[in-house]
């Protein structure tokens, strides 16, 4: 049941609980309990909104920063990650296999704000060896949702 609930709300977290229960063929209370429990267990970690900020006309800059670090003795990468993710400007931090260690995504109001954060806060952390900042020019798809496209129903309206 959990997997089925998650599959539905992953794409639409605003779905009406009553409707979700109907669609899964169970009581509403069952869905509610499962959701509460999964929230408590931190399986569901949050409900966010996918926004096309470009359309709002608000300046926003997103950067993906490749970070190389020296792992701290006894702590491995986790301690370093913690020092990075505690900054509220930081959107996500992933430990990555390959040529660098962390992928950090960052949102700021302007290029200057982002580069300031990188040069003054991120690079100055002890464990950081190097950073490489990649600015996002255009978002095509986010969280499985295609941003630009709004598809019309092109099917013939009545077919046997």
């Amino acid at each position: 049941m959990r997997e089925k609930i998650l599959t539905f709300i992953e794409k639409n977290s605003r779905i009406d609980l009553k409707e979700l229960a109907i669609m899964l063929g169970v009581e509403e209370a069952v869905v509610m309990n499962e959701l509460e429990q999964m929230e408590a267990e931190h399986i569901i970690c949050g409900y966010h909104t996918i926004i096309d900020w470009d359309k709002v006309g608000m300046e926003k800059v997103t950067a993906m920063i490749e970070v190389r670090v020296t792992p701290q003795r006894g702590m491995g990468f986790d301690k370093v990650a913690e020092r990075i993710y505690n900054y509220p400007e930081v959107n996500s931090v992933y430990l990555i296999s390959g040529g660098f260690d962390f992928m950090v995504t960052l949102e700021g109001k302007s290029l200057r704000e982002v580069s300031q954060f990188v040069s003054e806060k991120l690079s100055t952390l002890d464990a950081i060896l190097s950073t490489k900042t990649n600015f996002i020019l255009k978002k095509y798809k986010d969280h499985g949702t295609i941003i630009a496209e709004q598809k019309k129903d092109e099917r013939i309206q009545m077919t046997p």
Partner: protein
Amino acid sequence: MRDPLSKTIVTIQPSGIRKFFDIVSEMKDAITLGVGEPDFDTPWHIRDEGIYSLEKGRTFYTSNAGLKELKIEIGRYLARRYQVSYDYNGEILVTVGGSEAIDIAMRAMLDPGDEVLIPQPSYVSYEPCCILANGKPVIIELKAENQFRLTAEELEAAITPKTKLLVLPFPNNPTGAIMEKADLEAIAEVVIKHDLFVLSDEIYSELTYTDNHVTIASLPGMKERTILINGFSKSYAMTGWRLGYACGPEVIIKQMTKIHQFAIMCAPTTSQYAAVEALKNGDEDVAKMREEYNGRRRYLMHRFKEMGLECFEPFGAFYVFPCIKEFGMTSDEFVTELLQAQKVAVVPGTAFGSCGEGFIRISYAYSLDVLKKAMDRIEAFITDLRSGKK
């Protein structure tokens, strides 16, 4: 000038849907639930394989019966999903949609006067194809109280010495009815007893919401008297690719291939390459779509229950078939008024045979948002009808 037309073709009526289609397409902000194809796009990896085949310049005819690789995959698929085994070499024919398979199966099997049993309500093409193949259609009227399944008694009652072929359209469009194994066993017994053949149209086989679909061809003694028809349109959301297939005894497939060879040459090459990918790596896509349809199906059943609209619970395809007899209107009148009053388009049950009178077909190949809006409007419509406002 002489009459340019064949006497047979002019007796065949065009589909009854046309007139509603014309109204709907003129109407602004109408919601239509009249579509008989999936709302999903063909999964990307399948489309990509089609594109790749074009890039590679695979733009030639394939052999008449279809790409060997595809036929092998079809054989594997049927064995894996439905426990029937067909030899790719001689027992499988790749066609232009299931539709072509229906047509050429009838042409390959019927002599003038042979009777073909067609359970209705059902898809619109069986009867015309039978007539065009010089067969004589004999309609079996399925009943709501049997959940629109075909019973052995109904079958037995329709058989005459001239009966040759039984069309078995399950999971069913428009009713959503399915036939479970026990139902099929009863039918198989009668079929064998009277030495009939079966044209089993299983195009919706992946869309069942109880147990896995069972094909009558998998029952003892039935493979040699069954033409199994299936395809990619509904299961993989590939309607526009026009690809289906027929499987059956080599003697029949051989003659069908002959007609196919002269009329069609071969099924579209691009589609065939894409279909190989669908069969190899598409199970998960199908499962996802099935889950989604099932949710919508439950939602519609719930809404009908709330508004007190009688509807048997269908377990297949993506249609529900509610009964509108309480309003004392014909299906045609109901559909026309619903369209005018609330701008919701559905298909009258009579489009699928006269015994569809008193029913409407609602497709749930639409997003939940669309279905919700449409159900609100239908609820408003029947509330008005019941309170005598209309």
